[in-house]
């Protein structure tokens, strides 16, 4: 690739590169190489750990850090209590982990580390990852539902007050919408994160190519694209929070179905 062309591949940022054990690390025949994706999961976990650790001073009058951590736990606690009720409190550890893990992954993936030569990797832009998280949430819904209600859980597919002749029509629709949940849950996050990063990358290619093409193109294309990028960056920060919130909110709504049926 010629330097003056400086071609930007907007998809390259999602490439997974093995960092260690690309061939040798195997678990039951499956490759478990430590990749850049795994590295950013590790970073997310460590940063999240340090973040929550800072809120563990257990002071009666909280400092700023403790205040922020307590805000997040209170936020998840309130959300679960609003959606599920008193029984929702036991899901706080799971939903908090889910929300914060996704939130930190999204935000860390947005860090402008490219400036210093590092490449942040947003593992929530891989449907393998979001799919696993969605499947975990969906499994919890199924387990709780069948554990608490047994076969009565299937009454979830019959909305309350449905006239008898409508049941054969409505139940399959409800069933399909229920089964679509893990896909919509996982795909929503994956698509939102990927789209945002692709957009930023495409805009950055406009800036680079436009500037390389000369002063006129630089001013006509590069500058507006750069200004738009700044705005999109702010929007992406918002999306990072919203997508984490949506994932946690939908999980809590689905758990509510399992906990309380209709």
């Amino acid at each position: 690739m010629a330097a003056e062309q400086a071609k930007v591949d907007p998809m390259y940022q999602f490439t997974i590169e093995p960092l260690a054990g690309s061939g040798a690390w195997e678990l039951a025949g499956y490759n478990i190489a430590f990749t850049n994706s795994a590295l950013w999961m590790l970073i997310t976990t460590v940063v999240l750990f340090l973040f929550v650790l800072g809120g563990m001073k257990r002071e009666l009058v909280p400092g700023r850090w403790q205040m922020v951590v307590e805000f997040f736990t209170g936020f998840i606690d309130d959300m679960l209590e609003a959606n599920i009720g008193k029984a929702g409190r036991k899901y706080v550890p799971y939903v908090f982990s889910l929300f914060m893990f996704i939130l930190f992954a999204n935000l860390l993936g947005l860090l402008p580390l490219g400036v210093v030569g590092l490449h942040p990797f947003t593992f929530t832009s891989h449907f393998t990852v979001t799919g696993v998280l969605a499947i975990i949430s969906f499994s919890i819904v199924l387990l709780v539902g069948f554990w608490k209600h047994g076969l009565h859980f299937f009454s979830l597919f019959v909305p309350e007050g449905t006239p008898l002749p409508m049941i054969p029509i409505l139940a399959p629709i409800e069933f399909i919408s229920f089964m679509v949940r893990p896909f919509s849950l996982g795909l929503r996050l994956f698509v939102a994160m990927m789209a945002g990063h692709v957009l930023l990358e495409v805009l950055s290619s406009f800036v680079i190519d436009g500037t390389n093409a000369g002063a006129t193109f630089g001013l006509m294309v590069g500058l507006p694209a750069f200004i738009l990028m700044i705005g999109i960056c702010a929007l992406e920060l918002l999306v990072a929070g919203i997508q984490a919130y949506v994932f946690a909110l939908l999980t809590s709504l689905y758990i509510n179905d399992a906990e309380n049926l209709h």
Partner: protein
Amino acid sequence: MPQIAQLADTWSSQVFWLLVFFGITFFVIGRGMVPKVMETVAQRDGQIAADLAAAKAARDAADEQEEAWRVRENENRAAAQAIVAKAKDEAAAKSESKLKAAQTRLDKKLAEAETRIAEARNAALTEVESVAVEAAQDIVTRLAGVKVTKPAATKAVKEAMSHG
């Protein structure tokens, strides 16, 4: 799209490391640390509620004390007023009796004085009469050379005096 192009090569690694790190997040942070953070919050909420309740109780107690104090104060004031009124009454009664006694004494003295005055006047009158009788006798003797008996002179003097 690397997500699909690399799927066959990387999915096992992705799933494995996600489960490892999300597992650590869930068990260490979610299960281990979050409950403690929430416990702290609950503790603080409890403390605040307890403090508020204590403050309310203290205020109620203060109100009660004030009420009791007010009742006592009112009683004291009433008692003091009663004492003052009683003392006033007593003093009034005393001064009245004193006044009465003084009045009586004065009246008595007055009456005595009047009696004495009347006596003195009577005595004086009698003396004047006797002097007048003697003088009349004397005058008659000297002028007319007639000796007037004392009863006659007395009678004449009395007549003249009563006529003024």
